[in-house]
């Protein structure tokens, strides 16, 4: 039982001084430009004394009321901008005259801060971002350093705004953890308790009286009133499943009629973490600063892939945001992505209210299980220079780079994994590894845009930056003792070549091996020599092209025609499929008809992969971050997300 002390109102300055003593900058709520915002404070006088706010959908107004210091709702923006800045440097990439490259990752240099007047919902926001950025498979070092360097002095709410719904999200108004000190404001002072060793040390130094029973009772009553005062609740029971069952709700289109896709909700949300990598290079592109900035799933080019935008409509973007926040977040991080602060309601320029939308889209029923994710290391700025040994043209627009990484880590790349490739002057590229051999990575790259074109234009001896290996590769173990069907479309032959190398290396562990390969034209076929050589190694190669001239004597048609007369029922086969999504759908259907179950049919999804480790949010599909949880998935894992529009 934590001892509750009493901090007289006049002594608040002593607390602020004590916080500042250890060289910390104290960040608290202040009145600025007609609202309350977090900013550095020097004394209690800087706090919004005698101010209160009226928040409603699309509206925020300050007004005079009482003379308390913390009688205000959630400030305009949360503490996110201190723990996860809206812009932060990643690395500086440089290329010298003879083609070498150098990377200088930004070193985290967190300011020592003390947050004062932090609400329960605010703390919940910090804890959720801890899960995402510091406790996931990958750790954002800058974020962790900033969190470690910050002190949290919470103030429990004794009133609730009309947009507050922390009670229904289970995050407040009581402060139950994540704080160093917690205060509850009374007219003449604060009931104070510590939540950490440092918090206890600070309170002890102030030499405060113990709080009286009456003071403790008042404080408890104040917080209780804040709970009861909260308006419309969100029914969280089974919300995850309820929402996922409504992916086809007509309501999405209705919301889209009102939604401006302006991204304000995501910017003010204390848990939203999506980012994009921006570049600033000198006129010659020799030195490039990579910078990470807040981005939003509501923005046009956020979901842009090489082929276009997979969330072109506002309704797709709103659905992505809401289902992520309240449903798939749970799958990804074992917690809801919403803390009930109500900012997305107040700061929506057209007053869209998530509580109302949720109640209409997903009326209540029972609860859902959670999933956990393993923890491993990694950081979005950590590129290592690697030297190009050779560049071999495969087709008119595709070449294979053989690259020597500086250490063995990258050589441990497993079949189906990919690496991030960074060239100074260009945005980073996710590239599937097409072979690991003789101490080198083979990357087969198609000139699909300026960055890829520049990559395959590099001469031997030039360097580029690599980060990886990344992603979940092909589960070869799931195929041991079985027939193996490998289906590749177009450039998709590259990510399956390491798989082919692997099964041929251990040929006796597998049954029949079949490669079905579809290319656009005979001239677009990759690895032509190997296609001829593999049959000698007892790998049946079936080829087909979309269109051909009279000199082509092979098959013409689509890849499914290679398989639609086959039946695998007698020999439990495993299938590995990669190519354009549409091609994979057709193939998966054909294989299913041939008797290969979804559990043993594996696809590699080519999505927009920005940071490579699922921290930037670009690659999301339902509950998955493709570049972290994939790119390889069993079709059974994807369920009806596979091939759905606007996911």
């Amino acid at each position, binding site marked *: 039982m934590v001892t509750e002390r009493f901090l007289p109102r006049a002594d608040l300055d002593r607390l602020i001084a004590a916080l500042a003593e250890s060289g910390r900058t104290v960040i608290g709520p202040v009145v600025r430009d007609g609202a309350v915002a977090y900013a550095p404070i020097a004394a209690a006088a800087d706090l919004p004394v005698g101010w209160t706010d009226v928040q409603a959908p699309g509206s925020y107004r300050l007004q005079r009321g009482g003379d308390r210091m913390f009688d205000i709702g959630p400030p305009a923006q949360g503490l996110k901008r201190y723990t996860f800045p809206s812009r932060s440097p990643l690395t500086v990439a440089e290329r010298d005259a003879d083609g070498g490259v150098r990377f200088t990752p930004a070193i985290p240099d967190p300011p020592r801060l003390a947050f004062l007047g932090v609400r329960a919902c605010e703390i919940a926001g910090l804890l959720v971002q801890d899960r995402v950025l510091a406790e996931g498979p990958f750790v954002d070092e800058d974020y962790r350093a900033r969190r470690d360097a910050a002190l949290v002095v919470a103030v429990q709410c004794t009133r609730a705004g009309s947009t507050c719904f922390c009670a229904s999200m289970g995050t407040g108004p009581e402060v139950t953890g994540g704080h160093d000190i917690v205060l509850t404001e009374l007219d003449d002072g604060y009931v104070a308790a510590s939540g950490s060793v440092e918090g206890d040390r600070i309170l002890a130094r102030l030499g405060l009286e113990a709080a009286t029973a009456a003071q403790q009772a008042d404080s408890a009553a104040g917080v209780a009133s804040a709970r009861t005062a909260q308006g419309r609740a969100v029914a969280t029971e089974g919300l995850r499943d309820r929402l996922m069952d409504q992916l086809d709700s007509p309501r999405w289109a209705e919301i889209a009629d009102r939604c401006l*896709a302006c991204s304000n909700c995501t910017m003010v949300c204390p848990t939203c973490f999506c980012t994009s990598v921006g570049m600033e290079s000198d006129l010659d592109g020799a030195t490039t600063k990579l910078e990470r900035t807040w981005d939003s799933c509501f923005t*046009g080019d956020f979901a842009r892939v090489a082929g276009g935008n997979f969330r072109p409509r506002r309704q797709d973007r709103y659905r992505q945001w809401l289902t992520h926040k309240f449903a798939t977040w749970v799958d990804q991080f074992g917690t809801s992505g919403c803390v009930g602060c109500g900012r997305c309601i107040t700061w929506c320029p057209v007053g869209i209210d998530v509580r109302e939308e949720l109640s209409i889209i997903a009326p209540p029923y029972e609860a859902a299980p959670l999933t956990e994710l393993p923890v491993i290391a990694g950081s979005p700025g950590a590129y290592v220079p690697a030297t190009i040994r050779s560049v071999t043209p495969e087709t008119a627009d595709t070449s294979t780079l053989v690259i020597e990484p500086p250490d063995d880590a990258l050589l441990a790349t497993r079949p189906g994994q990919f690496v991030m490739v960074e060239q100074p002057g260009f945005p980073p590229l996710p590239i599937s590894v097409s072979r690991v051999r003789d101490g080198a990575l083979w990357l087969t790259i198609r000139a699909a845009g300026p960055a890829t074109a520049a990559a395959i234009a590099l001469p031997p001896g030039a360097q580029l930056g690599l980060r990886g290996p990344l992603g979940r590769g092909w589960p070869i173990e799931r195929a041991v003792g079985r027939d193996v069907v490998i289906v590749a479309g177009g450039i998709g032959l590259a990510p399956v070549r390491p798989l082919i190398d692997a099964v041929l290396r251990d040929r006796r562990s597998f049954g029949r091996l079949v490669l079905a390969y579809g290319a656009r034209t005979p001239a677009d076929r990759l690895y032509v020599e190997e296609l001829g050589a593999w049959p000698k190694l007892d790998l049946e190669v079936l080829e087909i092209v979309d269109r051909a001239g009279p000199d082509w004597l092979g098959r013409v048609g689509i890849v499914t025609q290679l398989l639609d007369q086959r039946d695998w029922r007698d020999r439990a086969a495993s299938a590995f499929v990669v190519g354009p999504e549409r091609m994979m759908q057709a193939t998966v259907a054909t294989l299913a008809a041939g008797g290969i179950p979804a559990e043993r049919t594996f696809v590699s999804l080519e999505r927009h992969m920005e940071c490579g480790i699922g921290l930037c949010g670009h690659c999301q599909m339902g509950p998955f971050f493709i570049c972290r949880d994939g790119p390889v998935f069993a079709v059974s894992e994807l369920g009806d997300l596979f091939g759905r529009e606007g996911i």
Partner: protein
Amino acid sequence: MTARTEHQRPRVGVVKLASCDGCQLTLLDLEDQLLPILGRFDLIEFPEASSLRSHGPYDILLVEGSVSTAEQAAEVVDLRSRTRMLVTIGACATSGGIQALRNAADEPAWRASVYPEPQFISSLATATPIAEHVVVDAELRGCPIAPDQLLELLTALRVGRRPQLPVESVCQACKRAGNICVLVSDGIPCLGPVTQAGCGALCPAYGRGCYACFGPREEANVPSFHGWLSRDRAPGEADRLFAGFTGWAPNFREPATRAVVAIEEADDA
């Protein structure tokens, strides 16, 4: 290593049609970068800054201003034929500029009211964006364009990559900057939610509403926002907000046209 090397400097031209010169001046406003840029690009046509003239051909042509006379309509076609990559710079070139509001009005009447001898005026009844006349390869939005976007365009062209010109809303940049929303907290009309970023969310940072210098962003939901703005305003006031420097852009054209027509009617009355 870059797509272009030293010995082949791109030949650049800068020309203007109907406009205020502010966007081409932005090139000269890149003070620190100006001489390095001139070392890497061959500026063969820029009448505002040089007496040396050239008919091209141009690798890159920056075109400011809207097409407002018959001569300009012919000129822009001719320029296109001598240009590899034509970049329109600024609101006039990309959406017609504020002078394009006359497209919604009775232009001869305007002429007569401004000029004592209107019969001498040779001007098209409309002022239109370049893209309505010729194919445009790239555009820089803004009234005026942002110096950093111009520098990014030139850098990208030289390095041979796609320039980073965000299509996000002004709100996104505004929140990133930590500004307090003037619309939500003060009720000041602000077009940020439907306007493309690029200015650095200047107006909210300076305590006033955005007036859409960079024009409508993709997916700009004007009907919804217009409805919201109209709730507590006199009829027609919301329309006028859209009748600005990018008022002739397709997404803003409907309310902007209503505003111009309303003003004309009030004027005649």
